[in-house]
């Protein structure tokens, strides 16, 4: 395969905090339309990896190439505008705004000061918000305040806020944490639907869930890549069993 087929290619990525290498020489490639899952024990550097991709943390060395953009040099909002959406581990939505307003504010128009001043709630916005709300199972909760949603619904809302901007790559940090079995099932379906049009990079702990959805899996351990491949391949890897799956 050539570089062109990858949405995201990470090469030699390293970050150190006061000498501690949280991510150490990681290379990782995400294919177009793939549902790529990163697993690993606590402190393996998974969340830091996502922070590096979306620009929240800056690497000490290495490169992150996203559709021809070198992300390590770009400010966060430019990375988002280039087409990378990030969901955080603890749902981060606007608690004082309604579901509708949460989605509307994430609509990718009127992002400048002047644009925001003159932004109008027109038909295109209304339709898009309703489409997304339908997709994330919240169409009946459009007027509910963000803070009163259940934990699972907040997770969905945050995914919806990313989807409304129509990104090429979604970064999801533990999207099914705190969800009921039913909600988990729904989220699995949602993710399968989402990745038809875009690529998704997910951090997840729940191995059953990973088994269901993952196209490809990367195992991180102590900041470095331990193994990579399909789920069947990973589950038979001795090193992985030893450090992670074994317990």
């Amino acid at each position, binding site marked *: 395969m050539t570089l062109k087929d990858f949405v995201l290619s990470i090469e030699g990525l390293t970050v150190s*905090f*006061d000498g*501690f290498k*949280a991510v150490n020489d990681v290379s990782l490639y995400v294919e177009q339309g793939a549902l790529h899952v990163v697993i690993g024990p606590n402190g393996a550097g998974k969340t830091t990896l996502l922070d590096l991709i979306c620009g929240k*943390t800056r690497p000490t060395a290495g490169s992150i190439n996203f559709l021809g953009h070198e992300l390590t040099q770009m400010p966060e909002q430019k990375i988002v505008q280039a087409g990378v959406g990030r969901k955080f581990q603890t749902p981060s939505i606007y608690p004082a705004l309604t579901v509708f307003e949460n989605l509307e504010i994430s609509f990718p128009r009127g992002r400048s000061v002047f644009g925001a001043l003159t932004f109008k709630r027109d038909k295109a916005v209304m339709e898009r918000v309703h489409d997304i709300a339908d997709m994330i199972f919240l169409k009946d909760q459009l007027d509910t305040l963000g803070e009163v949603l259940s934990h699972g619904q907040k997770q969905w809302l945050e995914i919806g806020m990313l989807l409304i901007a129509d990104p090429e790559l979604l970064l999801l940090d533990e999207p099914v944490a705190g969800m009921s079995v039913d909600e988990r099932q729904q989220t699995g379906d949602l993710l399968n639907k989402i990745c038809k049009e875009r690529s998704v990079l997910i951090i997840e702990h729940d191995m059953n869930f990973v088994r269901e959805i993952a196209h490809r899996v990367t195992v991180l351990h102590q900041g470095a890549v331990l193994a990579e491949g399909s789920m069947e391949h990973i589950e038979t890897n001795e090193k992985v069993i030893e450090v992670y799956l074994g317990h």
Partner: protein
Amino acid sequence: MSGTLFFLDIFKDYSSDELSSIFVMQGFSGISLFSVFLLMALGLAIIFGQMKVINMAHGEFLTAGAYTTVLLSDLVTKYIPAALPYYFFIAIMMAFFVAFILGYIVEKLIVSYLYERPLDTLLATWGVSMVMQQSFRLIFGAREDSATMPEWLMGSWSPTESISIPINGLFLLLMSILMTTIVLLLMYRSRWGLRVRATVQNREMSTAVGINSKKVDRWTFALGCGLAGIAGAAFTTIGSVSPSAGSLYIVDTFIVVVFGGAGSIIGTILSAFGIAQAQSILEFFLTGVLAKVFVLLAIVGILMIRPQGIVANKVRQ
């Protein structure tokens, strides 16, 4: 005259010998300014740097310490003049306790309710400072008071013929070194300091492991105020005290702490040293106020490049 940079211009009237002696002399005066800054900033480095409370009344605790010293010196002069050479050590302790108790009360009544709203502590403590200033005015009058100094604090010490260092400046320097050492030991080597740092970093967690975070907050705040009281006592050796004396220092003190990197006591020491030296050296060439403007602008500029202050760790978020 023209054509040269303004900055180089200011040096051109001096020979290199003169220049080096100017730097040495201004360096000495910078050291006493440094001890002033450091003494003021230590308490705030704990209250603001560690606890994130914007204590606008910090200067008033300093004033309280200074008035305690003045009061004691008056009493000693009147009733036991023989004790005059020694009273100052007792005055320092009393200044600490007075400011400590006042701080304890202020924390219990006001600050303890505002830890979740750091910017609001600014408004509330501004109110506290108004009340305290007015109290001083009612009790001690609006005019300036000064303490009677023991003989041994006056005069100056001349190691060589050309250099003479005032004793009170030297005393101030010793005081600031002593206080800094105590604070550093307390914060980084004692069990109590560990609790303070734990509470500051993660309040919920430290409560969960059995630290009484309310008590830690109260004692930490009171300690910071007590340190301001000591600074007040020390200041009576170089100047007089008036009800609004403390408020003159408050902005300087905040700048020292912010510039050093809030949360780092080492940073506070470095920043007090840097600001004091820069100011006293510049003061020789420019007028005092312009030196101040230059120093302030430089600090603002450096803070733009390093918003976290001069000493700060890269943290994994």
